């Protein structure tokens, strides 16, 4: 093909090195996960007899999965987790990016202090406030609702999101905001129509960061919404994480199932990691 001729030889050798590095690290990152997955398909005995081996006739077992699927109301748990996660992400991204924009764009008295105030939340372990949060939720009559989880997660996700997004907002070329202002565009609209689209990679990154701890959280579902029909997937799965008797293959199976939805969410967000979003904007 025509194209081939135009691939640089030096690029080729560089590509080899680059891919070698990437593959090596990918292997490091994936091998343990690969172990999780193959072991999820093994009987408990199989796991410990030959942890590295692929499931074979002797060790293959879907016990883990059947247990998970039989014992818990998986669809419902998925739905709950999904709802909580997605709603939280949407709210966090919206509110955090708005706040970050205000902090990075406007000079007003106390700007730095407000930024600091909004960052305090990442400096204290949130579990510390569990009891107060629980009391608050009880008083609001939100106990055993997904709303309670969403509210707490939003509060929990905001500080980090604001912190990160504020930093990224600084990258946007000043001229663009100014052009919009000269275009007679209001501040809200500048934010939504110009700024947000341009920091999409950062927003997507923040979305991923917000999502991971929420999806994997066990604590707040336990105290705020342990009730029937409101369990999240992680809470549902915790039944398999025993103290003395442990169905490791069930744990592995359920946890590998549970990673799929966030992986999908990740893939959705990562499509926003676009190169050169601002290219062509300014000279």
């Amino acid at each position, binding site marked *: 093909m025509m194209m081939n001729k135009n691939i640089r030889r030096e690029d080729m050798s560089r590509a080899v090195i680059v891919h070698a590095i990437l593959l090596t690290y990918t292997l490091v990152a994936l091998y343990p996960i690969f172990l999780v997955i193959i072991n999820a398909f093994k009987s408990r005995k199989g796991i410990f007899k030959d942890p590295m081996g692929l499931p074979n006739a002797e060790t293959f077992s879907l016990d883990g999965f059947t247990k998970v699927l039989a014992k818990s109301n998986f669809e419902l748990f998925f739905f709950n987790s999904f709802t909580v996660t997605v709603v939280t992400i949407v709210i966090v991204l919206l509110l955090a990016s708005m706040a970050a924009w205000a902090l990075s764009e406007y000079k007003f008295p106390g700007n730095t202090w407000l930024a600091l105030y909004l960052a305090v939340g990442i400096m204290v372990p949130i579990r510390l406030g*569990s009891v107060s949060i*629980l009391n608050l939720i009880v008083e609001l009559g939100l*106990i055993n609702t997904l709303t309670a989880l969403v509210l707490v997660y939003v509060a929990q996700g905001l500080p980090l999101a604001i912190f990160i997004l504020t930093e990224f907002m600084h990258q946007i070329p000043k001229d663009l905001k100014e052009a919009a202002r000269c275009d007679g565009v209001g501040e809200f609209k500048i934010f939504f129509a110009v700024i947000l689209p341009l920091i999409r990679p950062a927003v997507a990154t923040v979305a991923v960061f917000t999502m991971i701890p929420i999806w994997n959280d066990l*604590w707040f579902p336990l105290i705020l919404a342990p009730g029937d029909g409101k369990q999240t997937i992680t809470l549902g799965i*915790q039944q*398999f994480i*025993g*103290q*003395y008797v*442990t169905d490791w293959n069930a744990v592995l199976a359920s946890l590998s199932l549970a990673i799929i939805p966030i992986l999908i969410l990740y893939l959705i967000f990562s499509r926003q990691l676009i190169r050169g979003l601002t290219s062509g904007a300014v000279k």
Partner: protein
Amino acid sequence: GELVIESWRNDDIDIWNDQIIPAFNKEYPEIKVTFSPTPPTDYNALINAKFAGGTAGDLITCRPFDASLELYKQGNLAPLDDIKGMDNFSDVAKSAWQTDDGSATFCLPMASVIHGFIYNKEAFEAAGVEVPKTREEFYAALDKIKEEGSYIPMAMGTADQWEAATMGFQNIGPNYWKGEEGRKALIDGSQKFTDKPYIDTFTELASWSNYLPDGYEAISYPDAQNLFSLGRAAVYPAGSWDISLFNSQADFEFGAFPPPPAAGSDTCYISDHTDIALGLNAKSPNAAEAKIFLEWMTGSEFASLYSNALPGFFSLSNHKVEISDPVANEFVSWRQKCESTIRNSYQILSRGTPNLENELWNISAQVINGTVTPEEAGKATEAGLAKWYAPHQ
């Protein structure tokens, strides 16, 4: 109303849902009961938070001693002395859930766990050893197995620390400190951890490192369980709760023996530890129904259901319970042969900082790891206790 049972026993959810609750409902179909377990590691924190927030369930599974006592003191657990059938439990059984002066009982005892050693019969045969009766035989057997080489003599690790204390120190110790006698002496201050029985316990513990698998420092509890259940180890320092796992996992025959006393001693001592009970949320809106449930639990039906469903958890009631599992039966039979005691760090002695139980975990593990000598271990433990416990100062 609907009763919610809070528990850390998430392994038991099937037993509750499939056996216990249906049995209860046969008698009381109008009372709906939900068993709501949480991961054991989070249980204490969670239950405290739920009480503070007023969202705790009606029936609360009780840890022994101080954790539950504290809940009672805070007014979260209702006194249960008036429950009919409470006299089906011995005072010893109730002692773990009573105020220090014994004036009030706030949880209904459910089960105890017994320590001992589980062994792989095939391994013993292969090495040509008998079930040891004395400490000397025990170590001779372990040496022989080690020599023979096809089995790891003893399956345990110190990575999780608590096994060293619970399956090690508390398992073999009562034979040195003479069970309840020594335990009480520690509480009243007449014995110290620097005394011989304790140093000896530590010394014996330290010798275990010869028999443990390579890299035992990093071997966790499930690793050890699996080493044994996969037939790679001969002896397993056990809690009776391990039985059900081994029943389902091991494809060889296994048996059990109590911690062997020194040759020539006439009594043997075992740790028969009160482990689990059920209490009533003082603010439960369904207190009446909850009491019905608790009363039902004092009956023999529950005792037998529970002990058989969970071999290794032995009902604390005075009902005669037929246990079908042979190994469990072996364990429970020691109650007749030997003197029972509970773990010496549980009552009163873990009330301060540093916490004796935690200290024992740490130090027992270190003793096995060889990072402290038995004497140092005794000194450190005693020093910790002396810090806050007047009788030892």
